[in-house]
């Protein structure tokens, strides 16, 4: 049942994005209604601050508006395409303002932003996430944590190394080895 509705959701978004590419504002509103909570969750997790996350989300939908004609449903699912734009915009904003530009401890978002296991947990449950979850499960705990906090936090190698209190070179090799293992595991 969930698979059917996911497919329907995808077809709906593909069709609506096509209308957006033709300049249909109402279609963008429908895309927004379907996707904004998902994409806002991504912004918030990376930026850890509602105001920044909302500014980025605003940019994301303007980018979707401008680039809908370059979306190719044969290459990516609509939600993956939009999530990629969202992540890139969020990471770029984080690089501009710096990870300490806002005090994460006063923001309710911190709790979400720093806890990765719940997302890994969700990954296990989602149909398309199972293989990635299994492959992440094959990594040792330290590597898995490093990869997950890199992805969810949008932090640079340098910031990750400082946070984990390990030398920069160590953090780089842990993550690079983790990525190579993941690639190998996922191609099986």
């Amino acid at each position, binding site marked *: 049942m969930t698979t059917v509705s996911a497919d329907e959701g995808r077809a709906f978004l593909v069709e609506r994005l096509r209308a957006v590419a033709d*300049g249909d504002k109402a279609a963008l509103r429908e895309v927004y209604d379907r996707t904004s909570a998902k994409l*806002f*969750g991504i912004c918030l997790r990376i930026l850890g601050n509602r105001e920044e996350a909302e500014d980025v989300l605003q940019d994301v939908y303007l980018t979707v508006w401008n680039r809908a004609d370059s979306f190719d449903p044969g290459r990516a699912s609509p939600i993956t395409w939009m999530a990629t734009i969202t992540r890139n915009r969020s990471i770029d904003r984080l690089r*501009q303002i710096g990870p300490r530009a806002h005090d994460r401890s006063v923001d309710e978002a911190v709790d979400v932003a720093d806890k990765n296991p719940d997302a890994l947990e969700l990954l296990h449950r989602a149909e398309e996430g199972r293989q*990635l979850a299994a492959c992440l499960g094959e990594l040792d705990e330290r590597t898995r944590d490093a990869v997950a906090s890199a992805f969810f936090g949008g932090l640079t190698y340098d910031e990750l190394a400082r946070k984990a209190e390990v030398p920069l070179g160590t953090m780089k090799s842990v993550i690079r080895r983790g990525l190579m293992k993941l690639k190998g595991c996922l191609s099986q």
Partner: protein
Amino acid sequence: MSAPRDQERDDADMAAEYVLGVLDGATRRSVERRAAKDPAFAAEIDAWAERLGPLAAAVPPVEPLSGLWPRIAADLDRITRRPAERSGPKGRRVSAIWQWLGIGAMGLAAASLAALIFVAGQNLGAPVAADGTLTATLASDTGTPLVTVVIDMNTATATLIPVAGAAEPGRVPELWLLPAGGGAPQSLGLITMERPLRVVLKGGELDAPETALAVSMEPEGGSPTGLPTGPVVASGALHSI
């Protein structure tokens, strides 16, 4: 000294690191430039986005404020593309905001020069809105960021950091302030896309997110009319931090 460094570079999968989000800003820009020129590399980035996509999908949704859509809708009204533009020749890309500027400039041609000078003088005398910092990402109409701008309201200086090149033979980039009320674009001077630079804002109301900045390509020496005449290659609204 250089051997281990090269070794390290060989081991790095830049496409994976880009998607994972561990690269600093400058390295991200160089990855994007490479991806723009190298389709195989761009495909590797797509493949990694696909591999790690389920992680993004697993992030719990959070409802944004209900006021966000009206902000987006207002931006859309400012940048709306005209249907004719899409069916037109697909040669040079003309930014959506340029269409908007074009209309503004035509309207202004009807106004008297005296009125124009009066408006400009008023703006120059206006105090800069508030303390703090504003930022803007000036992007092309395809969404590619070209310039990052950080404005220090206390010193009224803007720091421009080009992130991608824009070149047009025989033309130079000029920076414009698009005032909040929709008035005439004000030139902030010629800029370069080669390196970061500082621009002193001579005045003008800065009212995020209503005020926007744009870069147009003008003849050597700058726009001869005091209004943008060339294609707008990048534009973006100001945001307060």
